């Protein structure tokens, strides 16, 4: 089982890296889908089947689909490739690369501070998660629904086009 974890991890990292470097946005999106699916597998191996399912359904299935819709609406396919290539020149990479590497180094350093511990045995049922959600985390659930409502309102407002002039 551990092997699956590491394999899925490698896939996730590789596909994310590829996503970053594609001039064709649609290709990048597809790579992102693969990455998310790999992450779902990882989550499963960590003993969280519920969230693994959620990852696939909501993250890959709803959010990324939204992305696909927008990309298609904006026609960011093949015809935007030259522009993207231009923007992806070598000049853009050094600074962000440096920053990211430092960040990564710090995170790894912090993460490896504790003594090596194995995760507790056994998956965690959806039942337990549900009990937690309706138990101590009830307020958080309500708040997140409020958040989504706010998002809806915001989107509605943002999506309005200015009224056409009266002729």
């Amino acid at each position, binding site marked *: 089982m551990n092997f699956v974890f590491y394999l899925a991890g490698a896939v996730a990292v590789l596909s994310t890296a590829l996503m970053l470097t594609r001039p064709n946005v649609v290709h990048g999106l597809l790579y992102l889908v693969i990455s998310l699916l790999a992450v779902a597998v990882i989550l499963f191996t960590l003993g969280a089947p519920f969230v693994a399912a959620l990852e696939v359904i909501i993250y890959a299935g709803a959010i990324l689909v939204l992305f696909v819709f927008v990309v298609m609406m904006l026609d960011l396919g093949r015809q935007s490739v030259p522009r993207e290539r231009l923007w992806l020149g070598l000049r853009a990479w050094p*600074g*962000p690369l440096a*920053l*990211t590497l*430092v*960040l990564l180094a*710090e*995170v790894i350093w*912090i993460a490896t*501070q504790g003594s090596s511990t194995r995760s507790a045995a056994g998956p965690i049922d959806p039942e337990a998660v549900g009990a937690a959600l309706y138990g101590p985390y009830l307020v958080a659930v309500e708040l997140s629904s409020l958040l989504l409502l706010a998002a809806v309102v915001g989107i509605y407002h943002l999506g309005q086009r200015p009224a056409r002039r009266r002729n």
Partner: protein
Amino acid sequence: MPGLLWLIPAVPLASFLALALVGSRVPPRIVSLLGVGAIAASTAVTLAEAAAFLGTPPEGGAWVEPLWRWIDVDGFRPMMALRLDALSLVMSLVVTFVSLVIHLYSVGYMAGDEGYARFFAYMNLFVASMATLVLADDLLLLFLGWEGVGLCSYLLIGFWYRDPENGAAARKAFLVTRVGDTALSVALLLLFTRLGTLQIHGLMSRAVRDWPSGSALPVLAAALILGGAVGKSAQLPLQVWLPDAMAGPTPSSALIHAATMVTAGVYLVARTHLLFQLAPPVMLVVAVVGGVTLLLAGCSALVQHDIKRILAYSTVSQIGYMFLACGVGAWSAAIFHLVTHAFFKALLFMSAGVVIQAMHEEHDIFRMGGLRRPLPAAFWGFLIGGASLAGLPVVTAGFYSKGLIVYSAWAGPGGAPLLWLASVVGALLTSLYIFRLIFVVFGGSSRTIAVEVAKRPDWTELTSMGVLAALSVLGGLLYLPPWLGDHPLLGRFLERTLPAPSRVVAGLSELGSEGVVTLAFAIGLLLAWWLYRVRRPLPVALAGKVGRALHRFWFEDWGFDLAYQWILVRPFIRMALANKDDMVDQFYRFVGWGTVRLHQAAARSETGRVRFYAGGIVLGSVLLLFLVVLFR
């Protein structure tokens, strides 16, 4: 009676305040009444005090009238107190009486001037300060009066302020005397820290008790006091301000720069004579300064054109005589000459004022001439005053006072033949320059175009001149020498406070010395007659190249003005210009500039680009995590 002394400075002070506040709104007659009346009141009080002092002489020779405690800080407790002893009584009489006469003269002289009330206000303030100076029991109070007269001198020199040259002359006077004032302040500090008090009598007795004669401290203190006196009395090397001070109105020149303020230095030295006696080297310096100054100024007076400048250099020279007297230990002789000098010099200035106003404000003597008939009052004034100045034997006061000093220069405790010789030569020069003035201005025929007189002297001017003329003649009666009756009234009177004149060195009798002085006087008179009456050419044509150079040198006051200009004034102005942008200011300006620069640099980070800001967020989180890593 000690109780009324305070009125002497207080009444003129009150009059000053009244005139300063409302004088310009009041008719001139009230102004003159107030101005002259205040001084008359002071004079009356002084005379009353004199009568009481002479009638019932006090114990210890002095009345002290404490007024109130001035300062009370940690052991420094000077009192406001007035002291009346022989010396201050004589000075007060001179100050108040001569001021009264000059104030009366000013009523006529300054009539019609737009600053009439202001003039009397300043003059009254001056008398109040001078009276404070003279009557002070404490050196700090004396210093207050000292500064006050310096202020009034400045105000009166620059009286006609609309002309910037007058302002420059006033500033020059103030700054040069300031050098002396600084020396005096240091002296006061020294005396206080070492002896614990500034009350004059106490100070002197402590000094005599504690300080051995000739040691460093009294020498230093006396030298510093001498510095102050030299500044105020326009002696070497600080004499440069007095000739320029003639820019002020003639009555103020008469009062301040002839009779009273410039003699304050002599008074100070006489007051602190015990201290000077503890410092024999300084006494020698005093005598030498006096001797050199009297010769220097005499030479300078010989070549001037401006009528008032001649008199100014003459004043410097005569005060040199007083310093010489102090330096050789003839204190009462110095005071005697101070008194007679006040009389005849004020008279000379008044007469000069009459001439100037009559000649449409002309000052150059070589553009006057033949004024004997049109201006008889001025002529007699100059004649009597000039004779007294030069020392016409027997019938003038100046003869006696100057003769006494000349003899003391030989025979006094600090006397030396060289000093005696200098004073004799000085007498010759004095006679020469004053008779030169008289012959040029009054003799011969007129050299000017404007023949008719612009303004004739009125009764106030004539009365005051008459009074002073009488005193210039009769003043000698105060101190008759042994060979002419031996009634040294003034001398004996002053012995209550000042040391008695002693005749130490023999070799020349008083009569003999007087004879030599008379000879000098006669030679000077004849020389002046010959040069300016008989031959009549300008003296410059007489001499060759050397003569011309010498003339120029003496005209420029032996180059002192030029020296000061080059050594002090120019470098100072250059430094001031170099620091025009004020280094200290630059520091603060730099702070502002730096802040603006920092702002501009910081504003560059506001690029408006999202990715840049995102990078900033990442950088921030990197730094925060770094802190976590660091403090794990």
